[in-house]
């Protein structure tokens, strides 16, 4: 399932549009063999990172390597990466069948049987114009094209943002089945944390164009704790522990910390942290991104 190359590796990657900075000095390594959640607020740079990875955008500074190659460098590199753009664009005046033809003619590794099966499963009529499909059907069609080329890496830009809850659930269930069957590395961006928690086993948190934290979900959950104590307790932490966020009431202090080992200080009540809480803490954390980016097991 996994090889030694990273799916995506960036080194001081920056992307600016005119004076607006979308990605700022990002260094991150996303391993293969996972379903990776790229989370962050709107405008955090998720879409920019994905488009850089598929070669739709060029970096302003720094480098990005995808499956060991330069994004979009040639047909071979393009064939290895599947991409589902935000809002799942399709050609409105071409039929569903035309789109399958498109996939087949533009991709040497096209899996016709897989594509046909998916179209049938979702009840899509090959003669129907893509412009008449519902949002969920359009997403399934676009995903079918992205998957039909049998990529090693599948990049999905906000795939469920525009879907109703039922279509969203179906989409994710189908995606997970695909991950179980064909085992591509999947990177999906989303601002819906509950979805990410469900389907992702690795997360990258972006905020303000920077990588705040990245790692395996289990490692992250194991290495973070919530400490609750009286307001009077000093928030100075021993070495090996870093506060990510702190909140206070008149009586109580709550800290979310990253820690290498167990917390022994008896003045704190220690509890586990959920992924959502952890991600939110990093998204709003006002700490230098660089010191947080690397979290090991």
């Amino acid at each position, binding site marked *: 399932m996994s090889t030694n190359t990273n799916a995506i590796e960036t080194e001081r990657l920056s992307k600016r549009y005119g004076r607006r900075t979308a990605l700022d000095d990002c260094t991150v390594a996303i391993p293969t063999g*996972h*379903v990776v959640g790229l989370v962050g607020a709107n405008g955090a740079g998720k879409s920019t990172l994905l488009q850089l990875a598929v070669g739709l955008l060029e970096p302003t500074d720094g480098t990005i390597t995808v499956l060991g190659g330069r994004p979009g460098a040639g047909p071979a590199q393009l064939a290895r990466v599947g991409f589902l753009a935000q809002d799942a664009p399709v050609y409105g005046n071409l039929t569903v069948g035309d789109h399958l033809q498109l996939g087949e003619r533009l991709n040497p590794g096209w899996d016709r049987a897989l594509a046909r099966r998916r179209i049938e499963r979702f009840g899509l009529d090959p003669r129907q114009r893509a412009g008449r499909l519902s949002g969920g059907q359009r997403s399934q069609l676009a995903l079918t094209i992205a998957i039909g080329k049998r990529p090693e890496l599948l990049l999905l830009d906000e795939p469920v943002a525009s879907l109703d809850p039922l279509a969203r*659930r179906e989409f*994710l*269930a*189908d*995606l*997970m*089945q695909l*991950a*179980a*069957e064909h085992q591509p590395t999947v990177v999906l961006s989303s601002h819906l944390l*509950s979805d990410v*928690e*469900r*389907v*992702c*086993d690795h997360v990258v948190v972006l905020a303000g164009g920077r990588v705040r934290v990245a790692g395996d979900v*289990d490692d992250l*959950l194991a290495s973070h704790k919530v400490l609750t104590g009286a307001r009077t307790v000093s928030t100075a932490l021993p070495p090996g522990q870093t506060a990510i966020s702190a909140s206070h009431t008149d009586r109580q202090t709550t800290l979310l910390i990253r820690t290498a080992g*167990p917390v022994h200080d008896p003045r704190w*009540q*220690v*509890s*586990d942290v*959920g992924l*959502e809480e952890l991600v939110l803490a990093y998204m709003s954390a006002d700490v230098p991104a660089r010191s947080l980016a690397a979290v090991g097991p």
Partner: protein
Amino acid sequence: MEFGVIEFRIDTHSGVAPYRQIVQQVRQALRLGLLEEGDQLPTVKEVVAQVAINPNTVLKAYRELEHEGLAAGRPGLGTFVTRSLADGSLGAHKALAAELGRWLQKARRAGLDDDSIAALFERTFRASMNEDVA
């Protein structure tokens, strides 16, 4: 062969890691006798298609069950239940349930409403878990 001996539910707002939820639900089913020795657990593909979760999560849950000696994977066939929890726990279950019932009556007599009882239980439960960990 009939699929779906057991159906999992994943609640992403519970704060419990999804793989833990699966492990707990299998244990619960074993305790209640819904699963018996020799039953096949749903395949990874079936689970992810049903509840839309990461396949690695299901694998991890099944590994945990194997580690606990409750299930065993047979290559190419699937994962099967190897031990039941029903018999052993049922008797203790009864006694404990009776004890808890008596405790609940006491709590109500002391003037606690349902929410307070739940909060008290939760707090005590967590405190005892923390003691175990420390």
